[in-house]
């Protein structure tokens, strides 16, 4: 079947089997492998994407059902040049370990803040009940969502990974960096 959908702002047409799940269409037809699959019962939430701005588990949506709609995956939420505040908050709060649930968790959390921009910790926990994490015990995920909420409410700009790097603390006399690493006196000595 021919379907037309907009994924991360880009219009795309696909020829799909009627039974193909949206999760597989995104991953295998469009190579958007940031959407992960962790179960077969819509329990884990690793495959969460936004469908017309609302979070859905893409393993519970047929690709054909997404025809005519807009899909946003983790790749469309933000990238290294422009991290979404939620991505930055997960990074800063150590809200992830193995990273497998993380992309779906971030998408769900983005949706949660759209519905409730200033959630309490209990509301965050309840709002993420469709997403399972086995690594973090959720402590730092809650912390990250809280921090992202604060950042978004205060209208903080997006940052790039490079802006948040380098992550070494300041030094009075910085050790040699990558560029021009060959020390001047050695170059002269060599000449």
């Amino acid at each position, binding site marked *: 079947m021919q379907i037309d959908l907009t994924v991360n702002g880009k219009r795309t047409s696909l020829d799909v089997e009627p039974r193909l799940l949206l999760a597989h269409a995104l991953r295998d037809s469009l190579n958007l492998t940031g959407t992960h699959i962790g179960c077969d019962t819509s329990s884990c939430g690793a495959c969460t994407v936004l469908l017309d701005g609302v979070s859905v588990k893409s393993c519970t949506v047929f690709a054909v059902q997404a025809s005519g709609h807009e899909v946003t995956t983790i790749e469309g939420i933000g990238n290294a040049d422009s991290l979404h505040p939620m991505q930055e908050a997960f990074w800063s709060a150590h809200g992830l370990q193995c990273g497998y649930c993380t992309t779906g968790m971030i998408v769900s959390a983005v949706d949660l803040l759209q519905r409730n921009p200033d959630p309490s910790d209990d509301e965050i926990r309840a709002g993420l009940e469709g997403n399972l994490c086995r690594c973090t015990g959720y402590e730092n995920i809650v912390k990250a969502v809280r921090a992202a909420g604060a950042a978004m409410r205060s209208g903080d700009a997006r940052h790039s990974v490079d802006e948040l790097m380098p992550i070494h603390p300041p030094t009075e006399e910085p*050790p040699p960096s990558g560029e021009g690493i060959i020390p001047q006196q*050695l170059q002269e000595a060599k000449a």
Partner: protein
Amino acid sequence: MAFTAMVGARIRRREDPRLITGRATYVDDVRQVGTVYAAFVRSPYGHAKITSIDTSALKDDEHVLAVYTGEDLHHAHNLKSSLPVAHKMPDLKTPPHYALALDEVRFVGDPVAIVVADTPYLARDAAEKIVVEYEEMPAVVDPEKAAAGPPYVHDSLGTNVAFTMPFSAGDPDKAFAQADVTIKQRIVNQRVAPVPIEPRSMVANYDAGMQQLTIYSATQIPHLLRTQLAVVLGLPENKIRAIAPEVGGGFGAKLNVYPEEVVVSWVAMQLERPVKYIETRSECFQAMIHGRDQIDDLEIAARSDGTITGLRLKITANLGAYHQLLTPVVPTLTLLMSHGCYKFENIAAEVVGVFTNTMSTDAYRGAGRPEATFFIERAIDLVAQRLKLDPVDVRRKNFIAPSAFPHTTATGLTYDSGDYENTMDKALALVDYAGLRKQQEELRQQGRYLGIGLSTYVEVCGMGPSAAMPAAGWDSATIRIEPTGSITVLTGVSPHGQGQETTFAQIVSDELGVPIDQVSVIHGDTDKVQYGVGTFGSRGTAVGGAALKLAIDTIQAKAIKIAAHQWEANPDDLEYRDGKIQVKGDPSKTFTTAEAGFLAFMGDKLPPGLEPGLDATRRFEPPNFVFPFGTHVCVVEVDARSGEVKIVKYLAVDDCGRLLNPMIVEGQVHGGIAQGLSQALFEEVVYDDSGQLLTGTLMDYAIPHAEQVPHYELDHTVTPTTVNPLGIKGIGEAGTIGSTPAIANAVIDALAPFGVVHIDMPLKPEKLWAAMQPKNGSAR
């Protein structure tokens, strides 16, 4: 000013940018041209004879490339169809474990056939068209029934008992004869499922021209996987490349060589195409290793002051249908740690490992130690309850004293360092223990049931000295100073969430004086990285990090020689200080590692006799395990109307020696607590009597949501170890080990007014509600 230390700082993880943006590559994200997809046909029975396998429906299917059964594999050239088990037990029964079942299936999920098709959907369709006829056989799932006699899981053995291991220390009979009080209790440590969110995943390819097999697998042990594949497939080990790309959680369940890894590799060799297999969650519940599943029969001898004088113990371990890589080792670790952090001298014990018609048990986060900690921490509370003593006082009475370290235990371990009372006192002060007990009393008057539970754990990790391990216990690190000054680290451990790309870079940054973003840490690829043993047993940093420190030492020594030659100085007069070379005590002039690396590359300004290049590969052989410890305190309220447990407070004070990155340490503890808590309250793998798995999906098996776990308060003490040059202990499993008994002790403490002494996990509301009902018509 000195170069500010990275070690000890809360550095954001360097692996995270790719993970938070969806740009990381897990096994299922590996794209190779020409990939075909495998599906397995699995046993629907706990125990059955295979009478026929009919694949004829696939004969003319243009989308199906191949079908293989156990029979095909059994007769395949070079293929040893039995899978490895690593152990050092002379009398262990090791029945064959075929990669695909031959004649007989022994648990639900036992793989019977593999089919390969053009797409994953078509492979699943094809698997359903294979008709397997079975003749059901009697199954046994209860390890005690299995130990008693037939039916046998492996008829050829004539028994289900895989091994028995007796143990005795001191004079337990005398201890029991002289005891003021003896307490008997059966404590069941139920079977649980590891449930990493990424299921088992693999893609294998065979380059016939190069005669090279490459397997990407979601594994914790790429090198050990390569070695075992070489043995089983009959290939030279140098013709196999095993890659653990991004791995989505392991928890011990990916510390294995699975039949599927062997079969998929072999099929890729037959087809000379990339063959990908990603299991479903249902398959994961059936055929990924399970954890725990012990019946621990305990008898404790104590004096009336709470001093525990003797322990009798029978550990009945349900091994499942087959040995996996470390199956029989796990319960032996329980025995080794059966005295916890207490000075028990008189122990009589027996470990019995039993086959049943269930999935194998193996190493799951903690692997044997959570079971020991659970029963011993419950035992302390049982003693306290019987003698009407405060459980804190009973602990204090029996702790190994800080002055007694290194301390050799009755089971023969040497605890490196510890101060158990210190962490407990810190925890008690932080929770206001006396205040809590007072509050508990007040609430009881109002018909509200608060429970306070302690767990003072010690665990054995940093696995470990090679002599004490089923296989090698060392690990490795290579450091290369590249000509332009960046530093490449190759580590033999295989992190999958533990953050060593960051912590190892922190160490290198400090010691070799480079910004952390100049350090790249590479792992998980046997063609890139020197042999390493892998990530498990909280060894990644305690062993792999220690190897890294040795490599740093070698680099520094050579860099000093290079600097000395430049400065026309004696190397003995130079030192590394704050990451740079200087004349001892004189920071006015410095020489950097990068400068030394550049000269080592140029090669023409080196001291006579010194080889060019600045790199080093070192291995660390741990002289001992490490023994992190701590105190967890849990406060719960149990609702008398519903039996529901509300966690009011959770505090953990852990001691893992020096902290390299406190943020990462805390993350490990958080996750560990959640897993241990979840075993106490929610999780349970259930088989029915015929071996049918009743908890086969995430709808039936309860891993916790965010709402079901509390906020954790953490603190720590620092008692370094001398076992490794970093002074650190592992922290990957401590949270899981410490938390389960803290929760259970709290819940059972809450129910003490109802005369409750012990309830087996999971402590579900229906069990608790039932225990709170008036018995024999007498109201409480």
